[in-house]
């Protein structure tokens, strides 16, 4: 039993198995209740993005705001691929590969910057991609947006497939995050987070590890964007390149605990629950109420829920 529980593969395998059960169990439970389907898919999407962000923002300690850039790029990649008549799987592949191909050189360049400078440079990527997508209207439809052909049909069927895809993606991201956290990569990233100069001195190839983490994160975000585009069926630049796609995962990770494996999952659940309550009861001040929640969270529970619980148990 001891050898089983200490095996580094047991967690990821459990995550994937749990994901598979959830992915195909949830639609049976939920049936055709459109509201619950939407809520569950949104939750799985946020969990995916929060875990992806956590690889860079949590494990490595670089506050990235580029999530929305790769999310939007993935969404547009699959939309353009489908317009050209490619099958769905190749659209997903294109989304992941394009995001990774953009992230590797861009990440390598801007991961030399630290703190606020890195945050701003990563945020700028969102703006650049948004304007380029809007401007390149031959390919992307510009500001008018783009339809995903084949997305028509029974809305419940589309929503169910979207939920299944999104949950499996979330589970895969969680499994990957576990493997990274336990492995050499995660150890190297933790060293970089704590003291990058010392890590370099100890022989850790910091630029390479940071770029790997950034690229992995971007590929996951690209896949999440592709799933989102197929779910929604119609995307435009101001939707998929919205900065809130960068900010919400950060808030979710902050709520749960930045740099922990399960923090992004717990945080996403709390965040989605809060957002639903706010939007239903405070329609016109929803964003403002979200601001109040975030401010209180940062002031009262800066480390997040999971580290908060662990600390209480330790004392």
């Amino acid at each position, binding site marked *: 039993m001891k050898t089983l529980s200490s095996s580094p593969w047991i967690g990821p395998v459990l995550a994937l198995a749990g994901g598979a059960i959830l992915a195909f169990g949830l639609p049976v439970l939920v049936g055709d209740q459109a509201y619950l389907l939407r809520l569950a898919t949104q939750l799985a999407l946020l969990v995916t993005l929060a875990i992806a962000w956590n690889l860079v*923002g949590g494990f490595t*300690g670089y*506050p990235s705001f580029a999530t929305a850039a790769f999310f939007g790029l993935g969404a547009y990649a699959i939309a353009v691929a489908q317009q050209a008549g490619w099958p769905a799987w190749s659209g997903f592949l294109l989304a992941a590969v394009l995001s990774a191909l953009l992230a590797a050189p861009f990440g390598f*360049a*801007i991961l*030399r*910057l630290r*703190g*606020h*400078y890195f*945050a*701003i*440079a990563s945020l*700028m*990527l969102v*703006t*650049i991609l948004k*304007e*380029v997508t*809007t*401007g390149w209207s031959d390919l992307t439809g510009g500001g008018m947006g783009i339809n995903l052909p084949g997305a028509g049909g029974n809305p419940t069927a589309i929503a169910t497939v979207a939920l299944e895809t999104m949950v499996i993606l979330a589970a895969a991201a969680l499994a990957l995050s576990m493997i990274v956290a336990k492995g050499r990569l995660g150890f190297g990233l933790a060293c970089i987070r704590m003291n990058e100069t010392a890590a370099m001195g100890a022989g850790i190839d910091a630029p390479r590890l940071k770029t790997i983490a950034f690229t992995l994160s971007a590929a996951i975000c690209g896949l999440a964007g592709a799933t989102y585009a197929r779910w929604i069926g119609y995307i435009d630049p101001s939707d998929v390149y919205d*900065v809130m796609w960068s*900010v919400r995962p*950060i*808030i979710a990770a*902050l709520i749960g605990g*930045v740099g922990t494996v399960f923090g992004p999952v717990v945080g996403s659940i709390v965040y989605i629950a809060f957002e639903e309550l706010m939007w239903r009861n405070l329609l*016109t*001040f*929803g*964003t*403002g109420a*979200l*601001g*109040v*929640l*975030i*401010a209180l969270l*940062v*002031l009262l529970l*800066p480390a997040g829920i999971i580290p908060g619980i662990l600390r209480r148990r330790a004392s």
Partner: protein
Amino acid sequence: MSASLLAQVLANGLLLGGLYAAVAAGFSLVWGVLNVVNMLHGSAIVLGSYAAWFASARFGVNPFLSAIVVGPAIGLLGWAVQRFVIQRVITAPVLITLVLTFALDLILNNGMINAFSADYRKVPPVTGAILTFGPIGLPLDRVLAAVAGVVVTLAVHAYLNNSRLGRAIVAVRMDRETSMLMGVKVEHIYAVTFGLGLALAGIAGCLMAVVFPISPLNSSGYLGIAFVACVLGGLGSIVGAIVGGIVLGVVESFGAIFVGPEYSVTVAAVLLIAMLLLRPQGLLGRAGYE
């Protein structure tokens, strides 16, 4: 392209740059002294614009005059926000202060959308005159706003260099620990600096209201301008904000002609990232560091 058109584009860029200097100065000051990227800055500028619009519509006071009251009022608000909210996490990692000011920005921006709606409003022209220099035509309002932007920014620079409190602010920017040992109350300096930064934002808002339509949706654009101008000029340096603002204004103005106005933010962003990678200390270097 004819020489007169080039001159006109350059003049437009310079005028834009004067305004951008005022937009960036307060942001740069807060970043340099507190090491806080103030995401609230853009919304504070919009708040200043609304105050100017209100003064103009209700009392018939033009934005140049109302700035004298609006600036200090928003500055007082900034002092309180720093003293009672941000100060509590001032030593936390970058991500925490960034997220906190972002949350404050959501609250202020949503509040303004509720109070004023997202519709665009416009302050009526102050003079309406157009100056002509040969082939170049410049609206007098724009010239006045740009000049006022640079003058206010230079006034803050002079204040920092010549007053007791100003020297203390610069001392904290250079070396927080040593200035503490010299008896500077750092907490107090932080609150005053944040107040000064938001006062500058309020004044910049009044000046922007002279030239541009007002809407809460402008706030993220203003924040972007502040970011870029600040990094271009050099972090924490007031003169750097003027240089950065003017460079950005001219680059944007020419970018609109050569690349197209729809790519104005991309031009600024590429400039910013190139600058961060090649010369992160800014064109003028980081005043009071190293």
